[in-house]
């Protein structure tokens, strides 16, 4: 039972309440840094680290954080982890760090992270909070990666920097540019919603059939 509960928290972030596809949060990094798969993964990992770390701390301290100043406390905790992530990336992969640029410090302002602290971590026990954070971060990573992969394949004919086609490939310049981000995200959201619509329809049909049968 207990195991189920944390699994539930994990899977809801990955699929049903996916931060990008279902909640449409964190659009700024989503559109800005997904012009290649490697940037998307770096951004996803940094967000993962920050989200899980701050959810853990916020949840542990939830009984000591005064309600009136909770947002500032959350932000300080988040900013601590963002600073760690920023310098770690700078030390390990300076090239990616340069490409991501201002978007790493801007993780502080990612509404997904603050939203999870406010809505979940500050109200639930540490174990659930961490599972929720991992689920949300993995969901965010999947979304970033799918967008980055599509844009890199079409815009550059490559994936993670490896050329997939012959030299004659005609790059879709728009996919590397900001409009490509909007277009791809829109199309992916369209399919996500279409799928959900079809699934609800199917479930309704099943329920209807069951009611008639009984």
């Amino acid at each position, binding site marked *: 039972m207990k195991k189920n509960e944390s699994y539930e928290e994990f899977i809801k972030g990955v699929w049903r309440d996916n931060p990008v596809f279902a909640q449409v949060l964190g659009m700024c990094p989503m559109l800005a840094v997904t012009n290649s798969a490697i940037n998307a993964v770096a951004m996803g990992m940094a967000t993962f680290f920050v989200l899980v770390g701050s959810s853990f701390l916020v949840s542990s301290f939830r009984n000591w954080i005064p309600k009136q100043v909770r947002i500032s406390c959350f932000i300080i905790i988040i900013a601590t982890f963002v600073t760690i992530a920023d310098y770690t990336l700078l030390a390990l992969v300076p090239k990616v760090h340069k490409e991501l640029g201002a978007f790493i410090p801007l993780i502080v302002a990612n509404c997904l992270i603050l939203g999870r602290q406010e809505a979940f971590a500050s109200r639930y026990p540490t174990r659930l909070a961490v599972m929720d954070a991992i689920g949300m971060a993995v969901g965010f990573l999947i979304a970033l990666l799918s967008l980055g992969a599509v844009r890199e394949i079409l815009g550059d004919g490559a994936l993670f920097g490896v050329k997939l*086609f*012959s030299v*004659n*490939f*005609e790059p*879709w*310049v*728009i*996919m590397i*540019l900001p*409009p490509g981000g909007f*277009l791809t995200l829109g199309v992916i959201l*369209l399919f996500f919603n279409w799928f959900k619509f079809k699934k609800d329809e199917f479930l309704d049909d099943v329920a209807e059939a069951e009611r008639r049968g009984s």
Partner: protein
Amino acid sequence: MKKRDPDLLLAHAPLLRQGMTTPSVMRDVLIALAPATAASMWFFGLSAILVLGACIGGAVAAEWLFADKQARGDSLRDASGILTGLLLGLTLPPGLPLWMAFLGGFVGIALGKVIWGGLGHNLFNPALLGRAFLLATFPIAMTTWVPAVGDGGFLQIYPGNLALPFMQAQVDAMSAATPLGLMKFEQEVTPLANLMFGKTTGSLGETSGLLLLLGGVYLWLRRDLDWRIPVSILLTVVVFSAVLGLFDAERFPTPLFSVFSGGLLLGAIYMATDPVTSPVTPKGTWIFGIGTGVLVMLIRVFGGLPEGVMYAILLMNAATPLIDRYTQPRVFGRGGDTK
């Protein structure tokens, strides 16, 4: 409409109806475009047929794919998809790879029409949206112009057309500049007669000014076209370039050159007049036309691109709901304020 017994007509007012329906208007526009289409085949040979066909194919494929099962027949039968494809094709360079043309038609219908809710709900002209997508996606292929085929070259196909999907066109040895490009970058003026009869480099449908005007007159006679829009666009362009000519006749194009070069006639007569994306009030259509004309000239003369008709019309499309809102006529019998 089914034929009813004339002695017993049970219906609400209005009882007098025009025979104008969506399919009939679309058919008229297709007829009006026929001379220019034929001319494009004359000038660019088999390539014109292939590119136009690919565009229409892409447009119809998108229309078929995204239509409701019940409404599929209707949305295909009203020919608006075919018209979008044809208009898009007429704005493309003749040497464009066919897969790009197909993609343009598909995107034009999918993102320009279906996603807004189908015919009558779109904010932007689908054909121009498809072209804007292609221009942003494949900037090199979309600005590689090939000269018209020479004598007896009707069966000739430009090698660029046959590029495999997702592959580049082979670099064409023979490429040429459009009259507007020559004007902008090399200060070279193309003779007016060539512009009128179509002996120039350019996109498939923009080379022959006279045939486009002919189609426009046909549409005006059939009352399928709001004459205010093309007239106000063309007048604005003429006045704008005449005023510029007063300052420096050497540097700026003459009014006639401005009107007959580039895609202005095609855009002003067939695209800006799209009843869905242009204002409905008479005052609004004047504002729309003047705005388009001014934007065209601003982009052509002061902008970085040689041609600006597409962006001018798309920008004014975006302004159309606003124009409509502020030019509502006063309801008879009500007070002075229009709200």
